[in-house]
């Protein structure tokens, strides 16, 4: 079923919308949730919560495209759940999140939505300057929270090579944010 048809079902308040979304994107959502939570049960619950959130957001929203919109909800839910979980489940997602935070040392100002927007704009500009392959690797690692091994396999390179590439991207990002006087 096309995304526009699914969205029309949501607008018509038909529960079939949830089934169709789950059929089309359930596996992808589960993968994103699993990448962050590393637990089948939590990932399944997170996907269900995300579908419910989607139900509550459409209407009034009419996302176009639907896929990244849904993925964003799943990622947010998984990260919130992850932060609320006990320390035992910290192992995987914290690795990729902490990798990135290390390129951003502490800054003496109050966090705000404005700051996040400003940072998003800078990272967007930075990603625009990267070749496609590196940009995709960055997004897979830090947005989709895929493991380095998974990324290495997808790109047909060694795990070490993938780690080195990601390390260089982080270093470049750090230098870029420094140049832009964000750090």
């Amino acid at each position: 079923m096309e995304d526009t048809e699914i969205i029309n079902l949501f607008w018509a308040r038909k529960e079939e919308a949830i089934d169709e979304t789950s059929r089309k994107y359930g596996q992808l959502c589960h993968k994103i949730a699993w990448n962050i939570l590393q637990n089948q049960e939590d990932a399944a619950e997170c996907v269900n919560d995300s579908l419910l959130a989607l139900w509550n957001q459409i209407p009034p929203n009419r996302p176009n495209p639907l896929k990244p919109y849904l993925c964003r909800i799943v990622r947010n839910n998984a990260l919130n759940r992850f932060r609320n979980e006990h320390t035992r489940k910290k192992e995987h997602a914290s690795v990729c999140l902490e990798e990135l935070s290390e390129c951003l040392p502490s800054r003496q100002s109050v966090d705000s939505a404005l700051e996040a927007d400003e940072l998003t704009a800078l990272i967007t500009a930075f990603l625009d300057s990267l070749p496609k392959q590196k940009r995709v690797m960055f997004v897979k690692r830090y947005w989709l929270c895929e493991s380095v091994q998974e990324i290495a396999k997808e790109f047909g390179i060694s795990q070490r090579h993938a780690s080195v590439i990601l390390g260089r991207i982080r270093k470049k990002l750090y230098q870029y944010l420094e140049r832009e006087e964000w750090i």
Partner: protein
Amino acid sequence: MKPELFDKAITNLPDRYIEEALQTAPGKKRHLYKGLGLAAAVALCIGAGLFLPHLIGQRNAASDSKNGLSVIVYAAEPGETTANAIPLEKGIEVRTMEYSPLMSCVPAMPFSFSYGDTEDVTFRITSGTNGYLLKFRPTPDDSLTVSDSGLSLECGTGENIYWQPQEFEPDKYVLTVEVLKDGRICDTETISIRRSYDNFCYIATLEDTK
């Protein structure tokens, strides 16, 4: 900066990047010598004609294994204190986190299991006598306490079972994983573990017993 701010900034990246990453086909390696492309294509056609039945057989076997027992191990490079959860595959060795029975502050090495999309199965893990299995549960003060232990333990999908070596010298430790559905064994795998002698890492692989 709080990591949350960075998460928020990353989460808000434009849709086009997310779509681009989701659409990128996996496993595509680029050919370095484009001039050889035609010759390679011809060779591939001939090869495919000869080996197509074999290739189809392999593909079926691969997809079957995806539906079967999956073992997740926590892998790390030497010296790293954090680990990535990755699935074990036959014939591929995975280096686990550093662990020393006498010195490590981590309880043991975690493994978890799933069986396709089936949730109503249990996994019975049995260790050789040179190893030991543990299960932990969190306590209200945010630490862990042993909830079960022994040479054979059962767990559910996604639940962590921790293994620790009991002897330092053996070159090979073995864990047997049995998948139980309605009390009957429906699949079995053997995990082979050996110690890396240049550090305190252990190397795990799935044995090719089928």
